[in-house]
């Protein structure tokens, strides 16, 4: 457990020591901030529940998660520190999970400032405050965390498979797109209702919208938790196999 915390802390520290993390942080806050401004200015109705904000965060994830995860293993492999790491008395699975929680922690920290937006609405627009209720905020953010967990695990798998960070980022981005746009293009996907159902079931946007309305669907919980576990398991195997 001590090893885990040491690795986790080092991963988180490495995030804050790299310029990429700050660029991502700025990008994320800029886009969500502008998105919020636009939502409020154009049509407060979208802020009915916090669906609008969730959609903006959802779009940012598609860029931030591949970039944040790409370095986890690819960089260590390229610099050779992978060798010192893997010859220390630590289990492969400890390394993978510690890195996973390191990146996830960073992502969660990145999301925290966006909690200000619903707060601003509650304080400054009392007439619609009842629309931004704590339950939908909690369930919306919980879903953001779940989705992030699954994709951070996916990004680490991609990073473990290559020593090139760009390849890792782009493959993560591509696979994430399936989940992201699966539901969005649902009507155009296919005439076959089964394919459309699968597209809808995989769609992160729909899951987020639902949960941001305060309706929490256990099917998405199962989907993202099992995806997280699967990708982490595959990442451990990838680390083992690359020896």
């Amino acid at each position, binding site marked *: 457990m*001590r*090893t885990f915390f*040491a*690795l986790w802390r*080092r991963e988180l*520290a*490495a995030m804050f*020591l*790299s310029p990429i993390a700050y660029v991502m942080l700025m990008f994320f806050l800029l886009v969500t901030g502008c998105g919020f401004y636009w939502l409020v200015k154009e049509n407060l109705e979208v802020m009915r529940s916090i669906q609008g904000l969730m959609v903006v965060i959802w779009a940012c994830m598609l860029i931030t998660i591949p970039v944040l995860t790409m370095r986890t293993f690819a960089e260590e492999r390229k*610099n*050779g*520190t*992978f*060798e*010192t*790491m*893997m*010859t*220390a*008395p*630590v*289990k492969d699975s400890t390394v993978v999970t510690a890195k996973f929680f390191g990146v996830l922690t960073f992502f969660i920290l990145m999301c925290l400032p966006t909690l200000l937006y619903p707060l601003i609405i509650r304080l400054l627009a009392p007439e619609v405050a009842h629309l931004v209720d704590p339950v939908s905020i909690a369930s919306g953010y919980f879903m953001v965390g779940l989705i992030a967990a699954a994709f951070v695990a996916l990004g680490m798998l991609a990073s473990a498979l290559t020593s090139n960070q760009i390849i890792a980022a782009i493959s993560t981005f591509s696979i994430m797109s399936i989940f992201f746009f699966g539901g969005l293009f649902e009507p155009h996907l296919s005439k076959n209702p089964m394919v459309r159902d699968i597209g809808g079931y995989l769609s992160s946007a729909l899951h987020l919208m639902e949960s941001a309305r305060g309706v929490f669907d256990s099917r998405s919980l199962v989907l993202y938790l099992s995806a997280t576990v699967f990708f982490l398991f595959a990442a451990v195997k990838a680390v083992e196999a690359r*020896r």
Partner: protein
Amino acid sequence: MIKVSNLTKQFAGYTAVDDVSFEIKRGEIIGFLGPNGAGKTTTMRMLTGFLHPTRGSVEIAGCDVFEDPIEARRHIGYMPESCPLYTEMRVDEYLKFRAQIKGVARKEIRSRRDIVKEQCGLTDVGRRIIGQLSKGYRQRVGLADSLLHDPDLLILDEPTAGLDPNQIREVRELIRQLAERHTLLLSTHILPEVEMTCRRILIINKGKIVASDSPESLQKRLEGDLLISTEIAGDPGVIEATLKSLGSVDVVDHETLGEGWSRYRIDSSSPDIRAQVFECAVSKGWKLRELHLESRSLEDIFVSIIREDVATETKR
């Protein structure tokens, strides 16, 4: 301490390490030699459990490296070839982090860190960022890292590669100090390094161990043929012919030095004929100003062993 049996590693298309077996006892200092691409690094990576072998097993201090990797790694301090470090961390931070993941007890981390910093001459650079340190200092950080958990066995892959002569001397001195307390396996292709520090040499070529002995007995192996060097004044043609007739002399070649002097190199397959050369010079009335047995350096040994190996290979 180390027991390697039938270790083989195949990569796609070629065999990097081919059925290697050897044993290293506690307290030994082993030099691991071989030309580039002979399989040194691959072997060391398997010893540390970083690479998995195609066949064979490695036992470190009684633990199988591949079945009980965590326990085995506790006994190993390993410094990889290019000495990779987290360049964005400070020296102290890095050593603390490494001590934590190596399972050094919480209370001892600080003291262990201070000890290894002292040992490796890092006391003044604790606050410096690793990326800003010179190559020599980084090498020391790598070495300090490998010593943190006070391992029984140190495996150093080319610890002096890329250092300037001064730094090489420092690192070598450090290694010699470490040798007093640890079992040491170090790879290098710088031969004087081995000659100065190691008590046994393993030579690997094309993935096979071709020699395993002390430097002295390896030298003896070659003493079958002696190389005698002498400087005599006189007609080179006559002298050369006379020297050749001394018996058990294979080749004589000479080099003119001026003022009538020439240097002769005599390759003879035992016994030592220096006395005969002297007597011969006295009886013929030659002037002789130098006569000595050239000792074979480790370099000669290395070259001839690798050559022997290549020769037997081609014969097959």
